[in-house]
């Protein structure tokens, strides 16, 4: 980014913050931000925070943790009513337990609009507004929307004789077997580590096949029905039977799968849409410029492809002493200009105007695919009991991927585990 452009952004930010008399609260020395450490915070940390500090004199103290410790930290501090966090970054799956601790952001919207004219709540995708709301309460401003799409190296597919990316599972298997060139490059990368990435690696296959997780209200479990079993068996076969997955992918989580793409370990992958920016950037990736995107394939027809939606919101907790300043920072980070800049460095803003910006589409490539996927996607469950169910799912998936159980055995066992956990939580019978 040229110095000129950056200066312009800085100037714009300072202009928007040039109404200090509105700030009724005394100025703190710093604001504490707690979030995860995914590979997309660079703009916030390296550009927005310094700009904010320049405009207000307040430093942003970033605590960026891996997924599990991040959840635990928020749960611990917010649960104790601690004033130690000023800006909370939370994801869709946390909505259930975090929303009681957050301010109601609905009235804050009006405040934001009155102070910064270019804040347009209508520009936000409907899906993300819903995701940031739990039990009728808006608990944050959506900052990042993620969905799983299909990334592939166009040239490699063409060399193998495929001018179009696979639309059905059969086609996908054919392509995978054709482009699989072990040990230098495999066909398909996955989130193989028994951790927070397992679920998003698997669920497009589940959802596309018409499978479902469960009904959180009645406690009825669907994951081990015929469709779920079929989906899991197909997914696991990629690793155990067809061996189109790199062996070290079994240790991969978020950073490693991106690094794998950057070092050309696989030709295709299903993962977060915005990661496409990271693997396609020639400055940091060996495969820069070679990627193309499409929605995930469906079992029998492309239109059947379904994927997951997740996202992060920035919110002001009830207990902080610096509510106004936190809101100012959130406003700055979520502003259209900064979100455009963030998108260039790996973020996926939930703003229609940014995602559909022709410049962005030209430069980055995946936004239209993401927008399409979001139309029909399934959001991550936000019920508190999901934490436990997900841990049990991770265990099941890992065992199946190593061929220790067939998909049917594994999912039937999982259904039993889930039944026990639901009973513990008092859901269903």
């Amino acid at each position, binding site marked *: 980014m040229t110095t000129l452009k950056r200066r312009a952004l800085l100037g714009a930010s300072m202009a928007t913050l040039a109404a200090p008399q509105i700030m009724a609260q005394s100025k703190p020395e710093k604001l*504490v931000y707690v979030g995860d*450490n*995914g*590979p997309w915070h660079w703009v916030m940390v390296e550009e927005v925070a310094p700009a904010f500090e320049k405009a207000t004199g307040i430093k942003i*103290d970033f*605590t*960026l*943790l*891996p997924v599990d*410790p991040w959840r*635990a*930290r928020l749960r*611990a*501090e917010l*649960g*104790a009513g*601690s004033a*130690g966090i000023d800006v909370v970054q939370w994801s869709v799956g946390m909505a259930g337990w975090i929303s009681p601790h957050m301010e109601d952001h609905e009235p804050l919207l009006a405040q934001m609009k009155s102070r910064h004219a270019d804040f347009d709540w209508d520009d936000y995708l409907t899906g993300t507004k819903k995701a940031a709301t739990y039990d009728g309460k808006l608990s944050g401003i959506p900052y990042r929307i993620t969905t799983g799409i299909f990334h592939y190296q166009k040239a490699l597919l063409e060399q193998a004789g495929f001018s179009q990316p696979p639309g059905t599972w059969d086609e996908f298997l054919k392509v995978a077997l054709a482009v699989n060139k072990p040990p230098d490059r495999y066909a398909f990368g996955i989130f193989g580590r028994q951790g927070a990435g397992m679920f998003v690696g698997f669920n497009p296959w589940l959802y596309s096949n018409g499978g479902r997780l469960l009904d959180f209200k009645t406690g009825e479990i669907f994951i081990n029905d015929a469709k779920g079993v079929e989906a899991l068996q197909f997914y696991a076969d990629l690793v155990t039977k067809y061996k189109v997955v790199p062996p070290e992918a079994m240790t991969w*989580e*978020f*950073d*490693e799968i991106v*690094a794998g793409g950057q070092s050309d370990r696989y030709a295709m992958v299903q993962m977060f849409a915005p990661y496409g920016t990271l693997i396609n950037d020639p400055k940091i990736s060996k495969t820069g410029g070679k990627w193309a995107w499409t929605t995930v394939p469906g079992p029998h027809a492309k239109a059947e492809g379904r994927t997951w939606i997740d996202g992060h919101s920035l919110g002001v907790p009830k207990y902080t002493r610096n509510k106004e300043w936190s809101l100012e920072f959130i406003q700055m980070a979520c502003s259209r200009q900064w979100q455009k800049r963030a998108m260039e460095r790996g973020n996926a803003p939930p703003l229609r105007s940014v995602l559909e910006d022709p410049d962005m589409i030209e430069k980055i490539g995946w936004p239209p695919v993401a927008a399409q996927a979001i139309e029909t996607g399934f959001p991550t469950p936000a019920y508190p009991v999901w934490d436990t169910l997900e841990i049990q799912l991770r265990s099941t998936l890992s065992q199946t991927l190593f061929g220790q159980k067939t998909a049917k055995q594994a999912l039937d066992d999982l259904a039993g585990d889930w039944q026990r956990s639901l009973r513990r939580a008092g859901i269903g019978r």
Partner: protein
Amino acid sequence: MNALSGVGSRRSKLVFAGSVYLALIAMTAVFLFPLLWVIGLSLKTRLQVFATPPLFIWWPTLENYVGVLSQADFLQAFVNSLVVSSGAVILSICVGVPAAYAFARFPFRGGSFLFFSLLVMRMLPPIAVLVPMYILFSKLGITTTRFSVILAYSTFSLPLVVWIMRGFFEDLPRELEESAWVDGASRYAAFRHVVLPLIRPGLVAASILSLQLAWNDFLFSAVLTNNATRTLPVLMAGFSGGDTGVDWGGMTASGVLVILPVLIFSFAAQRHLVAGLSSGAVKG
């Protein structure tokens, strides 16, 4: 016991000595190599780190250390570790040494039961206590403070201190204190002026072991601190994934800086360590 004594020709003794040296060198190489390799990684640039085949000879660079030391959060974690460890050591020594003396010299009703339960507490898995301790501390409002960590560590080194010091006190001849008592001194005075000065090696041993326990702990600190108060092991654990997963140079440089203080301290007082370990261990 000297395996070299006894019957055998001069030559067989030389052969034996030679093979022992060989074995020792091999073992030392195996045990020290991982550490040396990691130190090496900390002195390489990013390109050198990922060179294939791995480089065994290269120009060392200090850029990783400079990078780590110029980061505020490393220095802060270092200070936190220092505060927490010394606090825990001082607390457990001040509280545990008098108790050890009492156990050694003045058996009282319920004393052996108390000592035994202290030992048992030492054997319990810390994670069993961590959850409720965390809840207790959050009710008291001291989670995320260094004080909570000092308290937690003290309860783990306390049984250790008592165990070791009791052994040292039992070794001390009673005549010294007895003559002091005969001269009319109270037990407290006798303890302070006669016994304590003689027990210094034991104190050193107990301190080193408590220090190691406090400095090296990860689990309790991870749960009971936040960013501002976290200790070095928690900072290090942040390297096991995420952005910095690829920064091997920074990771290893931090690691070396973390283990350096305890290494230096332990080497300086090594004799006492062995004495402490064996005394407490066997006589218990």
